[in-house]
């Protein structure tokens, strides 16, 4: 149990560093999406240029930001839920509830990550592109989704192992 707890703590620390890098990437990507869409307006009205790639480029940036930063949001327990029964259960049952919540989320995200990699591989192998005139390859956003959900699943694994281990209840998110 102690070894499991140590592993979870190490994993959590390593993931915190990774989240920091992904957050920085997400910030740049968010800014890039805003700039690309602004350019789109100016290009169309002032320079009379066609705007065929801007929307899709912004979508790729924003999908990337959303998925790549999902693990960091999970680390901060930023995904909201209904806490109607919070505090009503005895401490041990409350810990068990948190463990089950994290485990369910872990199973769901692991399945989602697996299917995302399958989809990404298929898009790469079959050379899928979007249906627009620009037609960028679809493996790009699929890969961002797969990487992001995989990191999210790892974060959930670390959190599941910590709550299921010997972490004192004071470490519980309030």
């Amino acid at each position: 149990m102690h070894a499991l707890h140590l592993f979870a703590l190490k994993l959590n620390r390593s993931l915190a560093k990774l989240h920091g890098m992904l957050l920085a990437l997400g910030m740049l990507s968010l800014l890039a999406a805003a700039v690309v869409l602004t350019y789109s307006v100016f290009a169309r009205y002032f320079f009379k240029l066609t705007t065929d790639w801007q929307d899709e480029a912004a979508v790729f940036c924003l999908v990337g930001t959303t998925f790549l930063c999902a693990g960091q949001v999970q680390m901060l327990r930023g995904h909201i839920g209904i806490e109607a029964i919070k505090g009503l259960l005895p401490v041990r049952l409350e810990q068990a509830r948190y463990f089950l919540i994290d485990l369910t989320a872990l199973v769901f995200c692991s399945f989602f990550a697996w299917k995302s990699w399958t989809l990404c591989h298929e898009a790469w192998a079959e050379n899928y592109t979007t249906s627009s005139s620009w037609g960028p390859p679809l493996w790009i956003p699929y890969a961002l989704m797969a990487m992001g959900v995989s990191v999210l699943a790892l974060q959930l694994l670390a959190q599941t192992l910590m709550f299921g281990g010997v972490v004192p209840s004071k470490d519980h998110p309030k």
Partner: protein
Amino acid sequence: MSATTIGLIFGAATLMAMFSGLPIAYALGAVALLFMYFFMPASALDTVTQNVYEEMASVTLLSIPLFILKGAAIGKSRAGQDLYAAMHVWMGRIPGGLGIANVFACALFAAMAGSSPATCSAIGSAGIPEMRKRGYSPGFAAGIIAAGGTLGILLPPSITMILYAVASEQSLGRLFLAGIGPGILLVAMFASYAVFRYRKERSCASAGSPLLSIETFSVREKFEMLPRVLPFVILLIGVMVALYGGYATPSETAGLGAVLALTLIAVVYGMWRPRDVSPILASTIKESTMLMFIIGMSLLFSYVMSYLHISQAVAQGIVELQLSRWFLLAAILLLVVALGFFLPPVSIILMTAPIILPPLKAAGFDLIWFGVLMTIVMETGLIHPPVGLNIFVIKNIAPDIMLKDIIWGVLPFVILMLLAVVLIALMPSIATGLPNLLMGLPTR
């Protein structure tokens, strides 16, 4: 197994998952996945990620992170305090002017930032201490800011409206315009109540109470406030002109608004260094990722409901009840109120739209008008317990005000909002008048 039976099990499983405390996004995704496994062909599980991606990769939906960025940029600058200070100076002489200043500042800030909690926090952190210093009761000071903050989801650009437009397949431009009339109505009602309350509190004030003193500002002081506020008002108008003048699509408007907001805070407040901008980007990412996950999973959830004919069966069942149209509307709005006790507006819209919109359409209701009503009803959910997000934001910025006082303080505003719902139900043109005037009558 009939669609009704599957629907009942589906509903029970969803309630169990959500009330266990599982984050909403995971709860919706896990229930959808479970029912796909048991009741849908195996191939459905193979396309689950593609479905989520295709739903999320909508350029309209992805304007949400950019509108949040625009709001965060304004919310994390001193714009809120400056806006409040300007309103205070300009309305100081009106009886109850401080309360009115708070309402107007909330409305303008909400329209710029598009976020209720951000509005509460930005205006409340300056407005509540000032109102208390001037002798107003803490409950009223908290209530007016909590209620004013709710305007963020009604006035354009409202994220709630964007989701409703996607879920109901209605014009986003029309919906944004339809929120303006009811928004002005609510501002007028809140401001009138502020005047009424000021008179009441003043009549009970003892000698020496700050409520009895009148504050005056010189014309110079008034004009000195303008340079810090006008750029943001120009931003507000500029974004609306870009959208309705046909210069930009809603997503381009979101991008343009975000860039302009970041540029303005850099120029007006000198917030251009990475250490100034990175907290804005980080908070945007946190909020938008949480929202986008709920949206993606809600859409997967709705897809499963539709595939298993659950939403169609429930909608058909409601139609077959042959309720009078007003009874149907009241029942649906009550359902929205009940859901508002536990769920954020985002989930309410995406989970209920496939069920409640077909019967409303069959009953002949205008879905743009209903979207406005639904939004105001959901706004009340932001200021009534147990969720009442704005109540907790206020508690955070004014921790010495008792929760009981805040809840009593918001109660009159909840009643005013429900009164506004009745008025808009009786006079739909309050909502539909402006879009019909500017964009013509909708094609049916």
